[in-house]
């Protein structure tokens, strides 16, 4: 009985659901995180799945997972989990290293037959050989009990066996002191068209809950403290969905309808899938025959007046580079989203990295500057996608938005904004029959040319990949003109530095050590800096969203610190970029290139090592 048990109050708890890729772990994870969010916890989630859709059953290669971090402040996915729900030996084997010493492991003893143990690579049964003695292991007959409950409700044996994840989830709800009314509602909603399935799932979940309540092995339950969030309407959102929605918001706000030309690629495909659902918002989504046609169709749409976008991941960006140069040359607005993954080549499709920065900055023939920005969290993807659209359209040039697999697929709480409250977007559209219109006449201050949309009276003109004369836009190989145009294109992007938000520093504004990060690592790095400061270390943090151009005050910030430590998930690309831009400072690097996010503890260690 709960009343006889100790209740542990906790600020943050990390729980990971792992199993075979068909075991329903993503469903368990989402139900659990939604329940926690509805109860007032802050949440962050991260799915972890193999590249193979159905890798061999019961093998380590086939393990799929879903990690949930709930509590009062969850800017990041916790490094290590308090509770691991492992549906079979293979998933236990693959994830044991992520469980905290003394943490709880809930696993299904029914899955530990000789064959499964052998497939997972165990020579003896870990539930019996004492190797898990540092953990609190709970290993009931989950499959048997779930199946019995479901079959008593006239479900067939195969489907009944599949409800084992609901039995586990019921136990977990008990362990975390949640009532079942919220998950029941969520199940009803999810299975709205199959209410009989919802009913069985609810019964099995309840059976798990009651089983846990009566199980003596469970000596304590956790109560996770809730958080005081700013008032407003909230939802859970993944980075990829947020990216898609940010683009839709920008299209609506700017009055330029959305066109997405894209080709499926992990982990960016969700953006294509999401936008394809929203034809009612006038989003035109074109699944092209390849990456090149994806970006080229977007360039065509941009010429025709669209908020034009293409979404991809590393290898796709490689294929798009020539066309990206065309967009730079023709000075057409274009949003390019790169959900980065491990490279080079096919690399680590389902893992995350920040290794496409060099390509985004420099990966084109000729001198072809693009605006480059990077999102820092799943919900920030909404604002940065919006921002990328605004920057591209207002400056008539491509903008590359770098996100990554980790924030693209991870989720967090998102405070829902009103579209009318987002900043206005005002592209320089040329007016019909403007006698002064010339294709390459520029605004003297911003150097931005006008957007003359086909179909507009009196503005017929030609653009293209060949160098053009200043103002008139005629084909030209004139040496002085070329030099001038190269300079204009560079300067146009550079001048933006004064119009983007100033770079900010967290912590002391000057001191011994400045930790620098960019993109999707913000959660881990800011938490690590906070922890280090709590330990009395003189360290500050600055996180970059604007990368090309860098904010105008970047140099002023860097010069106020004795040491600079650049942390990134590559071999030092941003550090090199800073070194190239501001060679007067010395940069130390902390890099990780394992397809995994930083852990807070290793960052704190790295900060300490700088002292």
């Amino acid at each position, binding site marked *: 009985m709960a009343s006889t048990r100790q209740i542990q109050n906790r600020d943050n708890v990390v729980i990971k659901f792992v199993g075979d890729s068909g075991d329903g772990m993503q469903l368990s994870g989402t139900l659990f995180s*939604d329940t926690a*969010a509805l109860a*007032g916890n802050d949440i962050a989630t991260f799915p972890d799945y193999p590249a193979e859709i159905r890798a061999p059953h019961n093998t380590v290669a086939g393990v799929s997972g879903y990690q949930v971090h709930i509590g009062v402040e969850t800017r990041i996915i916790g490094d290590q989990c308090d509770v691991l729900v492992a549906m079979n030996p293979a998933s236990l084997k693959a994830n044991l290293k992520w469980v905290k010493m003394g943490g709880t492991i809930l696993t299904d003893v029914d899955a530990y037959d000789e064959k499964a143990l052998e497939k997972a690579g165990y020579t003896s049964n870990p539930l019996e050989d004492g190797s898990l003695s540092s953990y609190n292991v709970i290993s009931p007959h989950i499959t048997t009990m779930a199946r019995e409950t479901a079959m008593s409700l006239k479900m067939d044996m195969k489907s009944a066996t599949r409800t084992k994840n609901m039995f586990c989830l019921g136990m977990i709800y008990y362990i975390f002191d949640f009532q079942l009314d919220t998950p029941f509602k969520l199940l009803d909603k999810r299975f709205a068209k199959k209410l009989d399935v919802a009913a069985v799932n609810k019964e099995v979940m309840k059976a798990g809950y009651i089983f846990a309540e009566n199980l003596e092995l469970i000596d304590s339950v956790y109560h996770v403290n809730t958080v005081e*969030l700013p*008032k*407003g*309407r*909230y*939802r*859970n959102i993944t980075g990829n969905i947020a990216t898609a*929605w940010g683009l*839709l*918001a920008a299209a*609506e706000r700017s009055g330029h*309808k959305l*066109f997405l*030309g894209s080709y499926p690629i992990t982990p960016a495909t969700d953006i294509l899938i999401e936008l394809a659902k*929203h*034809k*009612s*918002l006038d989003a*035109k989504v*074109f699944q*092209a*025959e*390849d990456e*090149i*046609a994806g970006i*080229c*169709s*977007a*360039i*065509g*749409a941009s*010429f*025709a*007046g*669209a908020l*034009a976008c293409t979404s991809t991941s590393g290898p796709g960006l490689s294929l798009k580079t*020539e*066309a990206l*140069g*065309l967009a730079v040359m*023709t000075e057409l607005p274009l949003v390019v989203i790169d959900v980065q993954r491990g490279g080079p080549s096919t690399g680590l499709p389902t893992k995350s990295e920040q290794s496409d920065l060099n390509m985004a900055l420099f990966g084109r023939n000729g001198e072809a500057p693009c605006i480059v920005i990077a999102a820092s969290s799943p919900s920030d993807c909404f604002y940065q996608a919006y921002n990328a659209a605004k920057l591209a359209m207002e400056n008539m040039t491509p903008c590359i938005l770098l996100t990554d697999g980790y924030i693209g697929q991870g989720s967090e709480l998102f405070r*829902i904004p*009103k*579209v009318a409250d987002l900043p206005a977007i005002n592209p320089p559209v040329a007016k019909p029959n403007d006698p002064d219109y010339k294709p390459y006449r520029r605004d003297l201050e911003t150097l931005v040319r006008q957007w003359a*949309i*086909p*179909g*507009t009276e009196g*503005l*017929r*003109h*030609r*653009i*293209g*990949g060949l160098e053009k004369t200043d103002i008139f836009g*005629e*084909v030209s190989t004139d040496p002085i003109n070329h030099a001038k145009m190269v300079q204009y294109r560079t300067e146009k992007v550079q001048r933006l530095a004064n119009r983007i938000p100033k770079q900010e520093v967290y912590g002391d504004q000057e001191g011994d050590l400045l930790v620098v990060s960019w993109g999707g690592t913000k959660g881990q790095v800011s938490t690590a800096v906070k922890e280090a400061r709590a330990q009395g270390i003189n360290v500050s943090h600055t996180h970059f969203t604007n990368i090309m151009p860098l904010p105008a005050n970047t140099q002023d910030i860097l010069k106020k610190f004795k040491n600079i430590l650049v942390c990134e998930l590559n071999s030092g690309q941003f550090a090199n970029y800073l070194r190239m831009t501001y060679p007067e400072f010395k940069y130390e690097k902390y890099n990780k290139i394992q397809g995994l996010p930083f852990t807070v503890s290793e960052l704190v260690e790295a900060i300490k090592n700088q002292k």
Partner: protein
Amino acid sequence: MSYNTMERSKEVLKKEDFASDQMVKWCPGCGNHAILAAVENVFPQIGYKKENFCVISGIGCSSRFPYYMNTYGFHSIHGRANPIATGVRLFKDDLSVWVATGDGDSLAIGGNHFIHVIRRNIDINIMLFNNKIYGLTKGQYSPTTPMGQVTKSSPQGTIEHPFTVGELVLGAQGTFFARVLDMNPQFTAQVMLEAAKHDGTSVVEMLQNCVIFNDGAHKLITDKETRDDMQLYLKQGEPMIFGKNKDKGLILTDGGLKVVTIGEDGITKEDILVHDMYARNRGLHLMLAKMKPPHFPIALGVIRSVESETYDQLLDKQIQEAKATSKIQCVDDLLNSGDTWEI
């Protein structure tokens, strides 16, 4: 929008309305000059507003085309005219989109895009200039260069089987395919008008002579002495008769085409095949597209023109349907859809 619903020009347009002020830099004698004249002639006849024409090209001699037309124009990168045109047309379907491309641009580097734009039946008009050589890079063989031809990059002759443009178009489920000769601008203009009227992807193969790097590529077809016997002008509903004396014709025998002479072996005019460009069955169209000298005349004019819903129309239908039925009518609706809660 379709040919019938496109906005028409209120003013009567002339050839001059589409002539650009740029100096035309094709070589003297190049077949492109005559094609340009034909296009300038046909645009006013099509009758759309002059602002609604859009000419898009890739890379190659033919791809300079947009600079020489006073329309909205886009000279893009090698092989990519078709996907760029796709984006223009899908986003703004009140534009009449024309692609100027070549045998290298659309059949080699842009081959993938070429078959897919046709398969999707996107409502654009492709003018494919086929001179069977890479002209702009000065004379390397292309995907349509005949096997064995000596070029700069095939000093011992090519060892590649060439593509037949029409075969590729029909294989990709093309709904409109026609062929013209550069030297015949009046006929070219007529065929292009048919292409403009066709809703869906139209491909007009323009046999074009590169005087510098592949002069005489179409010699058998164009030479005074041989041309009458080597050119078959197709007319809807009429027997396929050709020849200096208008006495040669095509019949179907043993599952293939055969050239016969009217008056010989008991053949009469009634035995000659009648051209039907609207036939849904591709069989005969494919045979016509594949005919080549010296054993057959080359088929000129519209080989195939069948109605089929365009991608643009289907996309628009889905958008209208979604707008009529979806609960999500603005982005605020979307942001607040699904599970949300107040704090």
